[in-house]
């Protein structure tokens, strides 16, 4: 990335430290499915009032909760849903998953780091060539990573 954006040299030091610190914890969590692009544009309303998930081409097996992180991230950016309802989603997820909200909050940091690092890597390696406008996403992704790193508190 430094070759592409020399001004961002060192910008990922803290996120990388945070991610490294969380790898061991992540390795002890159960593997499951990660959609990889779980956001509103890939969730279709059905006539019966349900939701159908499409676009599975990026799915893989991993424990991280990047799917929920991405869903919340994009919905906050859209800002079209009442914030109280949106902010209650992690707790709803915790209830549905049978875990406590604090655990989900922590999983969202790890999932956010995983998703954002993957997204940034895609932009740097592929996006800038295939989708030139993606170059404009770099700053936002780096900012997100740095914010997530601040929420990482080493044990």
């Amino acid at each position, binding site marked *: 990335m430094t070759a592409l954006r020399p001004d961002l040299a060192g910008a990922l030091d803290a996120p990388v430290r945070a991610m490294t610190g969380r790898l061991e914890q992540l390795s002890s969590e159960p593997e499951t499915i990660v959609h990889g692009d779980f956001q*509103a544009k890939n969730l*279709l*309303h059905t006539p019966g009032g349900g939701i159908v998930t*499409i676009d*599975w*081409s990026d799915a893989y097996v991993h424990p991280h909760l990047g799917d929920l992180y991405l869903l919340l991230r994009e919905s906050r950016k859209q800002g079209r849903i009442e914030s109280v*309802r949106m902010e209650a*989603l992690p707790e709803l*997820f915790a209830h*549905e998953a049978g875990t406590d909200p604090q655990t989900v909050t922590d999983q969202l940091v790890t999932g956010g780091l995983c998703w954002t690092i993957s997204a940034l890597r895609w932009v740097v390696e592929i996006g800038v060539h295939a989708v030139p406008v993606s170059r404009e996403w770099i700053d936002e992704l780096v900012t997100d990573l740095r914010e997530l790193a601040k929420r990482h508190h080493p044990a």
Partner: protein
Amino acid sequence: MSPQVQHASLFSGYRRLVVKGSPNGGRDGRFRLGVPPLIQRVGVRSPRRPVVPCTPPNAIQQPKPSALGRGRRELSLLLIQALQQHAGLDWFEVGDPLRIPAPRLVAEGDRGVIVLADLGGDNLEERPTAEGYEQAVRILARMRAESALRLASDPAPPPVCAAPPPISWPRRHGPTRR
């Protein structure tokens, strides 16, 4: 030209679906997937060799294609169905093995042609509702729980990345020692 799936391999380490034609109404070519190993690991273990279905570009209606989403959605609809069936998941007969709501097969025509359910409607980005987001969160939680359960009961085999076997040079062609 209707697209034809030329080759799909889920059981020999390949992660590739080769499609000739324009399943997404755009470029022809080969499409790499991350889905097959997941299907292989999470799904049932009864691989069979069906006719891998594919669909003509006009089989899926797309009510409101977006510039970037067009094609990718159609391709995804095609691939998830094709892969599920190819993996022997019998999605349409036994229900929903991963408990993931997905497009359904509504008709099967001649060899290599299927018609998928037209999902209609808008996506959650076009028509955001709090109820839709809550439903998505429930689906995500259920999907992760179910998949974790299946993966735990059927762990993946160790990765096949062993060192290549030592080369045994035939005596007459082997490297010469001075």
